[in-house]
């Protein structure tokens, strides 16, 4: 984010300063389990249900009071067997196994009513009203029983019984409006939030825990685990308006849960989240968050206690069209597939969303397994973490089915698509032609920024590169005004650190690329004088060091040879089949004498000579039959 221009920061500044007036978010939900439907409520109050398989509009429903009481929230009821239509409200699990389908859809309205819409009937099922005096902010279904919870601006939570269509209970939850609700997977606890998150025991309707920390209205609540609350293993997460963090809270047995344990960083406030809960400690929680700025962030994290640092996403997706200057297309919603590799995305406008299954965004290794990467005509995935840059990610692909009812994109032929991919890979590898590779471009900008403000962390980041190509290109695209500061910085590190071997590469690159510029400086000697002296003093010992190295090298090869030969001494003899009397004698001698030699430690003249003997012997053995060998052996005998 260092690279963003100043204008972007000013806008960020204004955004940060403007505080928390809540914004209009259009409700948008995928149906549970099979993800067959996407329910979307537009500004005009119409509810549209899209079939994600066929990508067509499945149903459209216009509530009678759609303009006066716009829909504020929707929630799919739990899947149920649709056999005899919606008259049977109670699910019978012991009944004949028919395919379970998502059916009921609860919509909260700004007028305080809750509408229940049945997709099986394709019509309004019933209306629940009379309990709220303010607009409904959130609706949540009970996972098993046919109960529905709604939270409202009038600070109350209402529990509806769907069999009777009446309120079962109603209680005041907060001093502020209830903006979010969540029922635990086992159906025993309920989370509600205004500014304070409260955990209710659903049997007694009493507050079980309170969690404080959000300064703005909490918009998102989700349980992240299915473990019971008394085992310290129950976690849930929360997100608030104008907050670029998702906080994870641990419900602890000892009640020491004042602060959130983990937080996930986002680029904007969360708009739609989906998560796969973990059932045990060994299972990671997978999380997909679509932010208000239209980006998707994927996280994977093992919830096993506090983590101080905010976690960054493992993958970020931004859709864009393929014009010459790609414009970002905002994502509306995303859900994780049953297997770890698929994500279903919905993007584009509310009136005509595009739904797509995308394979494998989480692990890069898996990306390469995909055989025929097809870049979708309309969308492409940008490199994670680099908003606004133009190069497409080389391997990321989307297993997109051909859509029958495509909105307004013209299809590209396979050849064209492949050509596009080829181009992009060439431009990334085509370093010899001097085309801009994304990486080095950034590095040059970063380096200039770091030199300008003398920012140690940025400079460190840049100087740690080991790739020669990157260094060369970075230096090549460095503006002239930054050359001398860079040389100064390099000099400084030379003086400071003992091993600045990486800096030598930078220095060399600078000298090579900017020779003429440097040579044209009138005060070159004074500019580079310090550097020269530093280097000179360092290499003063080169001669002696080389000698020492030679010595060490010789000794150490002897050692390694010694170790080898001590084991295979005999075999060496046999190999060369030396039957000479002298040799066998020396062999015997050596063997007999080598034992005291090997166990003694203090240097003595006898051992020393013996050592020399053995060394000579070995050299002799390696070149049998040589004349030199004979003299060596004579020498050996003599010294023994």
């Amino acid at each position, binding site marked *: 984010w260092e690279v963003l221009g100043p204008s972007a920061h*000013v806008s*960020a500044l204004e955004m*940060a300063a403007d505080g928390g007036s809540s914004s209009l978010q259009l409700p948008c939900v995928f149906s549970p389990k099979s993800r067959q439907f996407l329910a979307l409520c537009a500004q005009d109050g119409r509810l549209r249900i899209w079939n994600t398989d066929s990508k067509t509009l499945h149903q459209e429903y216009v509530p009678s009071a759609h303009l006066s009481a716009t829909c504020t929230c929707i929630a799919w009821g739990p899947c149920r067997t649709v056999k005899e239509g919606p008259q049977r409200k109670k699910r019978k699990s012991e009944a004949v196994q028919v395919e379970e389908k998502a059916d009921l859809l609860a919509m909260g309205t700004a007028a305080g009513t809750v509408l229940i819409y049945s997709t099986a009937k394709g019509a309004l099922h019933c209306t629940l009203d009379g309990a709220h005096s303010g607009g409904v902010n959130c609706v949540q279904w009970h996972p098993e029983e046919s109960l529905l919870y709604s939270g409202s601006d009038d600070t109350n939570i209402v529990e509806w019984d769907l069999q009777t269509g009446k309120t079962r209970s109603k209680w005041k939850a907060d001093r502020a409006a209830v903006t979010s609700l969540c029922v635990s997977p086992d159906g025993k606890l309920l989370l509600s939030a205004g500014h304070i998150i409260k955990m209710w025991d659903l049997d007694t309707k009493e507050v079980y825990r309170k969690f404080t920390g959000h300064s703005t209205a909490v918009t998102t609540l989700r349980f992240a685990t299915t473990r019971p609350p008394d085992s310290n293993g129950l976690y849930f997460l929360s997100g608030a308006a104008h907050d670029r963090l998702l906080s994870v809270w641990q419900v602890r047995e000892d009640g020491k849960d004042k602060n959130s344990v983990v937080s996930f960083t986002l680029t904007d406030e969360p708009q739609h989240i989906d998560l796969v809960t973990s059932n045990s400690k060994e299972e990671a929680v997978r999380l997909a968050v679509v932010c208000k700025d239209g980006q998707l962030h994927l996280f994977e994290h093992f919830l096993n206690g506090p983590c101080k640092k905010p976690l960054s996403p493992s993958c970020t997706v931004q859709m864009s069209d393929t014009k010459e200057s790609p414009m970002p297309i905002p994502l509306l919603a995303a859900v994780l597939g049953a297997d770890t590799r698929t994500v279903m995305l919905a993007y584009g406008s509310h009136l005509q969303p595009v739904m797509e299954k995308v394979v494998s965004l989480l692990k890069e290794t898996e990306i390469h397994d995909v055989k025929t990467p097809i870049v979708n005509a309309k969308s492409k995935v940008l490199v994670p973490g680099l908003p606004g840059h133009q190069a497409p990610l080389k391997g990321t692909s989307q297993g997109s089915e051909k859509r029958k009812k495509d909105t307004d994109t013209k299809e590209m032929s396979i050849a064209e698509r492949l050509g596009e991919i080829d181009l992009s890979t060439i431009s990334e590898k085509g370093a010899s032609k001097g085309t801009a590779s994304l990486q080095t471009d950034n590095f040059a900008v970063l380096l200039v920024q770091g030199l300008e*403000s003398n*920012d140690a962390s940025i400079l460190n980041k840049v100087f740690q590169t080991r790739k020669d190509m990157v260094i060369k290109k970075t230096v090549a695209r460095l503006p002239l005004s930054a050359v001398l500061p860079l040389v100064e910085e390099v000099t400084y590190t030379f003086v400071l650190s003992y*091993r600045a071997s990486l800096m*030598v590469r930078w220095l060399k690159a600078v000298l090579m690329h900017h*020779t003429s510029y440097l040579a044209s400086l009138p005060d070159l000697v004074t500019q580079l004088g310090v550097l020269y002296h530093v280097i000179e003093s*360092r290499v003063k010992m080169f001669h002696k060091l080389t000698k020492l190295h030679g010595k060490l090298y010789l000794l150490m090869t002897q050692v390694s040879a010694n170790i080898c030969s001590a084991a295979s001494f005999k075999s060496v003899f046999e190999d060369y089949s030396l039957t000479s009397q002298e040799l066998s004698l020396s062999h015997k001698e050596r063997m007999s004498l080598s034992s005291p030699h090997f166990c003694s430690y203090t240097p003595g003249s006898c051992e020393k000579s013996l*050592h020399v003997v053995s060394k000579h012997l070995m050299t002799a053995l390696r070149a049998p039959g040589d004349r030199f060998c004979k003299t060596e052996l004579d020498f050996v005998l003599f010294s023994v």
Partner: protein
Amino acid sequence: MASFKPTKIQVYPKLGEKVTQDTLYWKNYKAPVQIKEFGAVTSIDFSPVTPHNFAVTAFTRIHIYGPFSQEPVKSFTRFKDTAYCGRFRSDGQLLVAGCEDSVVRLFDVSGKVALRLFKGHTKAVHLTDFTSDRYQILTGSDDYTCRLWDIPNATELTTYREHTDYIRCGVTSKLNRDLFITGSYDHTVKLFDARVEKSVITMDHGQPVESVLLYPSEGLLVSAGGRHVKVWDLLKGGQPLVSLKNHHKTVTSLALSSNGQRLLSASLDRHVKVYSTTNYKVVHNFDYAASILSLALAPDDESIVVGMTNSILSIKHRKNQEDSKEIAGQQRRRPSYRVFVKGKNYVPKQDDYLVSKPVKEHLAKYDKQLRRFNVSKALDTALETWIRFRKPEITMAVIKELDRRGTLKNALAGRDERGLSQLLNFLIGNFVDARFTPVLVTAAEMILDIYQSIIGQSPLVDRQLLRLQDLVEKELDYQKELLEVLGMLDTMFASSLPRKEVPCSGIGKSNGLTQGEPTTLDWV
């Protein structure tokens, strides 16, 4: 015996950042106190009267903190929307603040409800300030206008519509009640005079102006916007004096240290830079965790307060000089202090008869052993773990001294596996240090000479020797590269030096030189 000279420990200059008066001064602050606010901290203002409380504007609140309190002593929460620019009047009694809902509110510092509401702007008000006569208020807004208001009857006096974009900063003159300066996103800074009802001087900053600052003498004006900080001479009619570019992101806030000798600028790149106002060079640099929106210094630099985008307020207090001294003094005094110091600090008077007593020379342990010619033991002492790691220069000095006496070989010889590995460890640890290499190379050669016969007997020693070899090899590679660089530099110096002679030797030669440059490239 008395003639024994203790080993001279060579003092090596400490490497790294140059320590100047400024670094000492600006490092003399305690660890910051961090306070979480409700939103991004957009403005901080110190009260001009003691005890110098400061008002922090963040989100929809203004908190007033005492000089040492970590909890707000007072807070104003009656804002409908985000508040901006809470500023004290020169008597510290009143506080004015703008708001996103375009209403300007005036508070009594001791009260809670707004004393006056100034309505008239149509958009958010980011600039508010009191004029020096204390009865008027200056405001600047996103509706491109700046206005003067009368405090007693809350009426608008004048409206200036000269700016063509948001007005985001400004300051009133402390010396003249009619002068004030505004900075706008239309890239200009304008000096207004209320007597003539229009701007007197216009200065083009070149970027949207985020902050302006007047020197106490009011002869110089500093403006910040984009990545630049610019200084203007007002007495010369708004002539640009100097332009500073030391940040890589937008500069958001400016401050002067209380004596006017140093200028501070804070930026979204998370740095606060301190400039000397005599030569406008950066003399110090602070790093913060997040982008900085606001910065203020307490009078006499007692504390530095910084507000960031992640809604954290960081307060650094100056270390108290007396405190630190006292602690140091206490540490020095041990229980036996009195016994040893008894009578030592007695100053002889004029009539006293002085009996001179030779001062007992204190020798370090290794020096004592050296005096007794226990060379091996002296080296052992010098190789003790604490000295070896903390003060390698002592070990180095002892080795050097032994080498000078010609007894280094004796001292190194006759060590068992542990002793030898300790020695090798020291070698490995300090070998590449350019200051120590000459001595250590000699020592290493001696060690190899002495112990070459036992190589291969101890896996520990062998491993260390292999590491040493590795180290030497790497160092050699490195030095080889350095030598190449030296060669390059030589060529460049050679090609640049004759340039000076070019005028006397003619044009033909200089042509040859420029042709010579590509050859250096090839050679490289």
